[in-house]
């Protein structure tokens, strides 16, 4: 649970810094398509996560990432620490 909370805080920071999204909008049940304006912003988000966590997104998994909670779960699975 602690790791999840830490990841959520980090995701809030990333969305805020990358796209100017207010942190209070980035809650676990929020849908990514509601937070971003368009597909370019969605792509920029993926890039930001890749950079922040030094990981290469398995783009096949992207379709399963719908909400902020899905992002948390994905990063929990694919990152260490």
């Amino acid at each position, binding site marked *: 649970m602690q790791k999840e909370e830490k990841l959520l805080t980090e995701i809030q920071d990333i969305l805020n810094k990358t796209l100017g999204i207010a942190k209070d909008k980035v809650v676990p049940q929020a849908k990514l*398509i*509601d937070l971003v304006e368009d*597909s370019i912003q969605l792509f*920029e988000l993926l*890039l930001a996560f890749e950079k922040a966590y030094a990981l290469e997104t398995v*783009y096949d998994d*992207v*379709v399963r990432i*719908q909400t902020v909670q899905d992002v948390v779960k994905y990063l929990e699975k694919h990152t260490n620490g």
Partner: protein
Amino acid sequence: MGMYTFVTDKDLINYTLSEILGASEIDRYDALLPAKQQSWLLGRLAAKQALIERVLEQLNVQIPLKHLTIISGEGVRPSFRIAGASISEADMRNIEQSFNISLSHHGTIAVASSAHTCHDGYVGVDVEPVRVIREETIYAFLTPHELKTYQMAAKEEQSRLATMYWCLKESYLKALGVGLRIHPRRVEMRSGTIPQVFGVMLDGRTMGSVVRWELLKNKYIVTRALVPSYAERREIAH
């Protein structure tokens, strides 16, 4: 291009919500965030008008907008259902299975297109306002060949070019039905003799698909892709 339908927020004044949407769609509309509702509604209106103008009227089928239901979910190609038309159930199902649609919306504008699946293939459309895209993002989605074209362009042209390349790829990936499951840099858009028309390469292989673009209202890029062969889609999607 003449191959897509577009609507703007000004078109909405001609309708009430219940004239455009059926009951299930109104439920969906109500569940959306208020900031997303108008854009979503425009997408629905464009898709339904594209179907009526380019499919149903050609078949002499009259139908109110609300009797068409556009069905879409995240990561899934949209489809449609017809109800209450003056044709048989069998004919309605046949039309639903024979044609495919794509829609795209951004703020106060939406575009949509349809295609006969067997004759034309699968269609994908995208609309984006021309805008400055971060260099880091541009470098991430352009192939080396495309990047060369971008870097050689006049500074004042680069925003349009970058937006155009994004839309070309996005509409192709939508036509394939894969969205961002394929990294945009795996797709290369190659211009030929006609400036508005691009051929497609995927992972270095030439595909049979064609994507067209145009500038709409001097500020939006609109693209339409057609993926013609089932074999191409099956090979890519698996």
